[in-house]
């Protein structure tokens, strides 16, 4: 039962030449499942390692509830961590691996046996207990690693891209398994991933990171509905939001593509970007009556079964549109129409206006 607070935490490497994290401020509530989401090298793993105690912050403070922990070694923080490569001790069998944290903490053997049996059952690896890590499958290794992490009932549970070494089918399976486990155990969890699907499906809240800083912390729905900057808009969604650069003039926007769309929103900035999600646009070949339309040429059509992805060239920019089905052929001139409430307006600094 732990609340994690990061207060203005920074981490520099190489004597300040490399900034891994800059002024992170974050509260993780007790029992919450928080996801650090960001591209490779954005500092999300370093942030996690600072919570674990594997790295010491160069600046700032980390609290578990009201105790300052940023100078404590990992052993004193009662955290458990699952590594991307599982980090199972190769010379111990599954049972000994799971048992190890208890052994180090001098838990009596009878209690150890009991707890190992308990988590093994919880994670369905009872039959693998005597096997060596090298003999079992990737999914079973993952479960062993999870079992080792939860066996001593940690106050904070940290996961560093735990699913990225699994194949697609297993990843889906473990995703729901992890979520179930976290719900059952109700342990404060911090999860690092670059996979937004994982983040959206598992996280209670998501902290989007880029270039060492947190860009937005929000619930998945909110993050999708209201991405606060063009960078986040460009990052979330598959494919991500389309952005049309333009200028604001007399209550409407002149897009660089030549189209003009009306807007009611007021902003100080002259340079703006109009953002529209691929799934919020409709492709028509006839000029529409709606004022909210943009003209372009179809480049490619990708039928993906569930939907069709139409890639449209609008003034040199490739725009993605998701439609249920379409008749258009590459080379056709098309009009992309959308509802005004589906459009996002970003100012010149890339901040969401409306």
């Amino acid at each position, binding site marked *: 039962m732990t609340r994690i607070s990061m207060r203005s935490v920074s981490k520099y490497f190489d004597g300040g030449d490399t900034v891994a994290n800059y002024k992170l401020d974050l509260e993780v509530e007790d029992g919450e499942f928080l996801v650090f989401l960001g591209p490779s090298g954005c500092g999300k793993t370093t942030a996690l390692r600072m919570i*674990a*105690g*594997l790295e010491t912050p160069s600046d700032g403070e980390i609290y578990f509830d009201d105790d300052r922990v940023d100078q404590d*070694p*990992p*052993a004193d923080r009662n*955290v*458990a*961590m699952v*590594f*991307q*490569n599982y*980090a199972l*001790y*190769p*010379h111990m069998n599954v049972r000994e691996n799971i048992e*190890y*944290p208890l052994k*180090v*903490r001098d838990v009596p053997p009878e209690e150890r046996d009991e707890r190992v049996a308990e988590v093994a059952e919880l994670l369905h690896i009872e039959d693998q207990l005597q096997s060596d890590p090298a003999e079992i499958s990737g999914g079973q290794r993952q479960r062993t690693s999870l079992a*080792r992490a939860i066996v001593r009932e940690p106050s904070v549970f940290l996961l560093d891209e735990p699913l990225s070494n699994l194949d697609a089918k297993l990843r889906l399976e473990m995703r729901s398994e992890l979520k179930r486990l976290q719900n059952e155990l109700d342990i404060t969890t911090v999860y690092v991933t670059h996979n937004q699907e994982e983040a959206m499906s598992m996280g209670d809240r998501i902290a989007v990171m880029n270039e060492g800083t947190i860009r937005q912390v929000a619930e998945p729905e909110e993050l999708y509905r209201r991405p606060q900057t063009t960078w986040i808009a460009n990052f979330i969604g598959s494919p991500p939001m389309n952005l049309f650069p333009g200028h604001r003039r007399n209550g409407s926007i002149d897009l660089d593509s030549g189209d003009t769309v009306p807007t009611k929103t007021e902003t100080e900035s002259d340079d703006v970007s109009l953002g529209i999600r691929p799934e919020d646009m409709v492709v028509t070949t006839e000029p529409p009556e709606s004022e909210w339309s943009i003209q372009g040429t179809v480049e490619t059509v990708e039928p993906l079964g569930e939907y069709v992805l139409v890639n449209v060239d609008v003034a040199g920019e490739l725009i993605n549109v998701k439609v249920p089905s379409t008749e258009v052929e590459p080379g056709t001139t098309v009009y992309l129409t959308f509802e005004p409430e589906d459009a996002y307006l970003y100012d010149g600094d890339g901040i969401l206006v409306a």
Partner: protein
Amino acid sequence: MATEHSTERSTERATEPSAEHSFEDTREQTVDWEKVKAIVVFMVPGLTLFAIFSVGPMVYSAFGSFYAWDAFDLQHFVGFDTWIETFQNDAIINWDNLTSLEYPMGALPQNLIWMVVHVPLSTFLGLGLALLFADLRGRRILRSMVFLAFTTPTVVIGLVLLFVYDPQAGIFNAFLSGVGLEGQVRNWLQEPQIAIYALIAGGVWVQTGFSMLLYSSALAGIDPSLLESARIDGAGRYRRFRDVIWPLVKPVTAVVVIMGMIWVLRIFAIVYAAGGPSGGPNGVYSVLGLEVYQSAFSIPIRYGEAMVVALIELFIALPMAWYIASMD
């Protein structure tokens, strides 16, 4: 009854795969005569050289050890006479001194003592240095400096030891006086009961470089996340070493220990350079290699004895070579 039953089951299990195996073998043989021929053709040159230069001399000396020799000429069959003489030779085993644990004990016990002292010391020093240097800035320079001793010819090491332990100009005595241990100043290589340990220290210096290098690469091969995981699991430095590092470098330890034992068994030049052909005053640090040389090349030439001593070395080394060769 229970044991009977279990043996029955185990034989059942044992025969099953071997039957499969031999079936596969026969099938392969019938199909692949060409392959067998090719293998033989390719192996003949290597096997010939191995037979001429390795197996041949071994068989010859085993055979020769049962004959009398006139210098290098084979005479008549003497059975185990040379063997018995050798084991009664004070230079090989000095039974009286051995029971009272006083040097000289003879080359064989001295060589074994050398092994028992040298191997653990050089192994643990090597591991210690490898651990110490693992995360250190400038570790390459430090490693090179330690490894340098291993690359130095052993004769030179022997000479260096002569200088280091020199009673007048030696830096070791100077060091002892410097730290206020004047009482310990002595002629290290001439004191019968101490000299061998002074030389062993030199051997350890050499071998440590080698074991450090092997351990360094073994440590670099350990996945850092294993150690981080152990830290999070609550293991301190000592437990991380005992529970994670030590078991993971075990194969390297086996190699280091056995290579060290073989190295000590073959030791010659250091002893010769420091103590001459006799191996120090009264042979207090003589070793087997030195005795082979003495018997074969000093007047009177005792070639049969040289063969016996060489065979004793071989008997000690063979199981170790076998172990190394059968490692995965």
